[in-house]
């Protein structure tokens, strides 16, 4: 069902025009305030650095739970997203708050480790308290054309996840074309992905509006075909409020308002939160604030 032959082609020029048109939507007033809060509630607040320490993860988690004490109406972020070694720290830091713990596993970001160790990594992260796993697909297998391997690996990871939600990262910039992005999206959903996710944030390019649109269209077609609802996570590159509101517009006008919930839409980012806070503060006070008005972490 997901062979390339049965999927319609994607026209790059048409995609560019559509995202340019949707990029001109004017989001003002209440729509902007609501959109900013919505975007905050969908954030997978992320730190994925070699230099991450328990202290840094705890600070990030605190910020995810309470993005800004100045605005009690502000929701928590959806999750904190960390490397497997930091899962237990994050779990303790968000315990009882409703904020999820997501972990990138499976040899993130390259995925170039043996399947056995990737699966073990997933099991350990889940055992430590991750309730969401962000895996990378094997771009090596995908680019060789071995769809069966890509699919069976996703199925194996899904199995290793147990009750944890699985987000499948396509790393779209490495797939080479929108046709591949659409096809890989279908492959991941057929293999059991709960979410499909654009990027690791570690490659040359992250979530572009074009890639997001093509993946959303794949989700819409998959849901129509199977009835199973799948979520979307743009990650990497959504670094401004404008970009985050742009994601909401793309989702609203492609999948509809039903997808505008943290259960079905996440935005993977670290630096965007402070811009969302600044913009929100501006809608409240009518003037632009300073970066120092908010804690960095």
């Amino acid at each position, binding site marked *: 069902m997901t062979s390339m032959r049965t999927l319609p*082609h994607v*026209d790059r020029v*048409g995609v560019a025009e559509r995202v340019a048109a949707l990029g*001109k939507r*004017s*989001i*003002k007033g209440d*729509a902007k305030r609501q959109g900013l809060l*919505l975007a905050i509630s969908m954030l997978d607040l992320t730190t994925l650095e070699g230099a991450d320490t328990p202290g840094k993860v705890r600070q990030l988690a605190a910020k995810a739970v309470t993005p800004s004490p100045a605005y009690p109406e502000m929701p928590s972020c959806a999750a904190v997203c960390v490397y497997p070694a930091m899962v237990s720290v994050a779990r303790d830091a968000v315990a009882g708050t409703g904020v999820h713990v997501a972990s990138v596993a499976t040899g993130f970001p390259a995925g170039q480790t043996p399947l056995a160790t990737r699966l073990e990594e997933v099991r350990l992260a889940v055992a430590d308290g991750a309730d969401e796993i962000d895996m990378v697909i094997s771009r090596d297998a995908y680019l060789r054309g071995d769809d069966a391997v890509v699919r069976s690996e996703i199925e194996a990871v899904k199995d290793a996840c147990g009750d944890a939600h699985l987000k499948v990262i396509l790393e779209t910039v490495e797939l080479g074309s929108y046709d591949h992005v659409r096809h890989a999206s279908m492959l991941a959903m057929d293999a059991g992905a709960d979410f499909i996710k654009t990027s690791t944030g570690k490659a040359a390019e992250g979530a572009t509006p074009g890639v997001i649109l093509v993946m959303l269209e794949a989700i819409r077609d998959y849901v129509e075909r199977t009835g199973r609802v799948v979520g979307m996570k743009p990650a990497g590159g959504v670094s401004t409020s404008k970009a985050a509101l742009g994601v909401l517009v793309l989702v609203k006008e492609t999948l509809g*308002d039903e997808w505008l919930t943290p259960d079905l839409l996440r935005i993977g980012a670290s630096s965007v939160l402070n811009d969302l806070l600044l913009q929100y503060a501006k809608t409240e006070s009518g003037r632009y604030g300073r970066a120092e008005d908010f804690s960095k972490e």
Partner: protein
Amino acid sequence: MRWDYSPAPESTDHVRLRDRYGLFIGGEFVEADAYAPTINPATEEPLAEIAQASAADVARAVDAARAAAPGWAALSGLERGKYVFRIARLIQERARELAIVETLDGGKPIKESRDIDIPLAAAHFFYYAGWADKLAYGVPVPPARGAVRPRGVVGQVIPWNFPLLMAAWKLAPALATGNTAVLKPADTTPLTALLLAEILQEAELPDGVVNIVPGDGSAGAALVRGAVDKVAFTGSTAVGRDIQAALAGRDVGLTLELGGKSANIVFEDAALEQAVEGIVQGIFFNQGHVCCAGSRLLVQESVAEQVVDRLWARMQSLRVGDPLDKNTDVGAINSAAQLSRIGELVAAGVEEGAGLRQVSCSLPDRGFWFAPALFTEASPAHRVSREEIFGPVLTVTTFRTHAEAVEKANNSPYGLAAGIWTDKGSKAFEVAAQLRSGVVWQNTYNHFDPTAAFGGFKESGFGREGGAAGLRPYVKVEGE
């Protein structure tokens, strides 16, 4: 959760319309005997009182153009080009104001007048300004023939669907080639042409080189029958026929850009997602008030259900309403008369059993509105498949083979435009060559560019506007 866009109206604060606009003759605004209001079709409120040119006024305007003709033609191409460049730049400077007025007067969404109409109008003046001193290259002449000369005085009658853009299509090549002009804007949308008159004054265009005479059909009829050397008309096929009959046997050049019922052909190997988007752009752009609108969708049977389902779903997300709102996709119908014509043809389609589906969206109480509609069971024999509706109404017909698609596309009295959607280059070229259409778009629709020639076959008219081809109707080659 439900997330609605808040209203995002474009501010009209800096737009200062006069209470009344006279006729623009001989470089100045002059009074007329009669005035009529032009209204905002989205609210039915009057915007300004507009002079209504009488036959005598039109004759005065032609005289002014005649008097200005020798001096204008005697200027070097380089000098004429400077004026045309200046007009282009002034349009850019006043772009925001022009866009708002275009939307107020015509009902089209501000995003279209802002991003398409006004920038393209400026682009046409820029493009033809560049030709002014290069005519020998734009109009190749056999060595035995003489020089390229302007025709003299041209009479130009333009439609209401792209008011400023159509004025630019007409005036830019006429001025670049050394003609003087009398332009008659449409009676429901005269305002931007009159703002253009102000721009011509600001550009210090010599008096009488362009004269603008608003009015109804009688002013247009007087103009095309007046003492002009060339007529350019864009509008309905019926009026085009009248003009051609009136000019028979006279040495008056004529170009006609008339109606259309253009086919948008979707093959099974198309990028369907983008094809659906192209279908939407093809028919709902400017409320379907587009002569080259892709109003007949021909879709290959194997993907027809999928395409129609997606199209219908996509139509639900069209935002219909206040044309000044930056998020509006479909604005107001241009006039009460046009709304009733659309209503009449759609009623005929329902009666014929063409299977109407119409988006149910809330429409403003006042003004002229028509929700986007689709006839899913349209047969080629139905009136709605043959007559130009000039509104946001699409007919859908299926085909099985390549040959059938071409046959159905060509089976129309019109031949203005067509769209082909396929991922196969060879198929696109083969089908394009078989279509009797002046314009063929591949994997896109309703894209305009001043460098590309535009014009029709059959009852869609003759002559080309745009590109180097657009120079030809405005010149005579000595010895011709």
